[in-house]
């Protein structure tokens, strides 16, 4: 049918005589290619170039040098920064994944039993998720206020417990930051886990019931294996998101006390925009890219084969 149309109106349907079903996609992709090329690809390539210079933000053209790489990677504080980044990321990702899954499981059960309150819980978690990072940081800073009237300490006092130095004790500060990040991020995992739970074939549960499986066995041998791909994809997404978290920390703790909560992204920011060291910041940016890419590959390796494509 389309061939006859092509005979009737050859001018519109491709002057080169090609079939109208196979137009070139590139004119359609051009805006995306231009924008992404100009604002993503080109800067990223330039980051790699800067890493081999001694450029600063103070001006000057800089010179090409190989020493920036070594100098940055040998910085004494880098090990501490990476450790903080690891604890922050691992804590947040595990917390969000576990709590998100737990809420999804309970909500699915509660909906089946027609319990009250599932919508309220889901909506509340999602509202926390929509709160902008900076505002989230400011809100939690009020909660963590260590004065007797702080949002958490006055609650503790009401229950007869001693106040906690949420943000000024270096050992506790990291966990406070993780807690605030779990608060803001969990809704995403919850929604993904909920959708994945709903997608499990109900006949699997019927079969398990016929075999006399207990609730715990159903969870361990039906639900969790079925969720595996969704959990892994979710972990990739939230890990990258957490690694790139910046605004929530700068507003909550600013990286302190000392360097107790200074994650890699905040450190990179400080190196470039407080110390004006563009070259060193570029090396750190490459480190950030390498870490996200490496983690994504590790997770992807655990995906079942048929989902990998």
């Amino acid at each position, binding site marked *: 049918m389309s061939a006859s149309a092509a005979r009737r109106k050859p001018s519109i*349907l491709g002057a080169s005589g090609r079939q109208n079903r196979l137009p070139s996609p590139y004119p359609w992709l051009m805006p995306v290619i231009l924008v992404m090329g100009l*604002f993503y690809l080109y800067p990223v390539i330039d980051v790699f170039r800067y890493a081999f210079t001694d450029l600063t933000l103070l001006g000057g053209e800089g010179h090409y040098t190989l020493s920036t790489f070594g100098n940055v990677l040998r910085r004494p504080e880098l090990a501490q920064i990476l450790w903080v980044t690891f604890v922050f990321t691992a804590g947040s990702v595990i917390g969000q994944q576990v709590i998100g899954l737990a809420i999804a499981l309970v909500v699915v059960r509660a909906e089946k039993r027609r319990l009250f309150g599932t919508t309220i819980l889901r909506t509340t978690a999602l509202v926390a998720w929509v709160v902008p990072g900076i505002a989230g940081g400011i809100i939690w800073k009020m909660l963590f206020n260590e004065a007797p*009237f702080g*949002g958490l300490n006055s609650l503790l006092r009401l229950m007869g417990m001693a106040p906690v130095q949420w943000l000024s004790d270096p050992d506790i500060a990291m966990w406070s930051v993780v807690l605030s990040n779990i*608060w803001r991020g969990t809704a995403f995992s919850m929604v*993904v886990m909920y959708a994945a739970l709903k997608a499990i074939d109900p006949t699997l549960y019927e079969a398990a019931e016929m075999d006399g499986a207990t609730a715990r066995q159903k969870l361990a041998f039906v639900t969790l294996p079925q969720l595996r791909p*969704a959990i892994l994809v979710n972990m990739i997404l939230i890990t990258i998101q957490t690694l790139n978290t910046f605004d929530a920390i700068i507003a909550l703790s600013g990286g302190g006390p000392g360097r107790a909560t200074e994650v890699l992204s905040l450190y990179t920011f400080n190196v470039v925009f407080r110390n004006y060291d563009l070259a060193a910041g570029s090396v750190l940016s490459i480190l950030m890219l390498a870490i996200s890419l490496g983690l994504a590959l590790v997770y992807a390796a655990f995906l079942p084969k048929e989902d990998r494509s």
Partner: protein
Amino acid sequence: MKRRRRDRLGDILSYAFMALMFVFFSWPLIWLLSMALRTRKEVFLGVARLIPKSPTLDNFVAVLTSSQFLVYLVNALKLSCLSAVGCLIVAAPAAYAFSRFDFKGKGLWMLGILAFQMISPLVIMVPLYRYMSRLGLIDGHFGTTMVYIALGVPVVTWLLKGYMDGIPRSLDEAALIDGCSRLSVFVRIILPLSTPGVASAFIITVIAGWSQFLVPFLLITKDSLVPIGVGIFQYAGTQNASTIQILAAACLISVVPAIVAFLALQRLILSAMTAGAVKG
């Protein structure tokens, strides 16, 4: 009998867990609201005055009449709406091509676009700051809007592609046979039918733009051009314990528009959000 008792116990545990989680997620926002409604004296009474005895709107008045706050809000609205429109203009044709055309390397192109999501905005801001300051694009809304668009394009492209996949191809084919060009099929048929997808993509991009901090923090230094995310951060830096209730009011004002926009289109946004992750 035994089973019913176990179900009852499960219900109680479910309620307990849900209540605990509800308190965890709502407490920070309840606290924020409580602080924002307090007078200066009541701030120091902590949780004992969760519901203020004499709630006041003075804090909101103080914030909204202070010199710059409304300007920040307007700037944020302008930046996020402009960038959402820009995002749609850039991404919609590509989404159509990905949905309708079969071409070599399509999967790779789509994955490539998604892969940009892995790159932290901070990484591209390092060189972008340098270019922009050389081009004189610092302290204008143009450069910032363009970066917002680039940050939003991957998600919007995928989202619109997914939506357009749901529109039957037979509509395109019928129109092509009637002599429509590809472009007019796209503009006259596919775009109007994609309105719900376009709307949710728009809202998602607006919310993301509203939450932006890093990009405007670096690219905009003039106070009259700063959007709310940066404005409130700088505002927080100048506050102390005696004005915490005003900061709370300011914070609440900056958060509420995003929450309202989200709640209005919750269903659409959620289905868009999960589609990608669950399909893998």
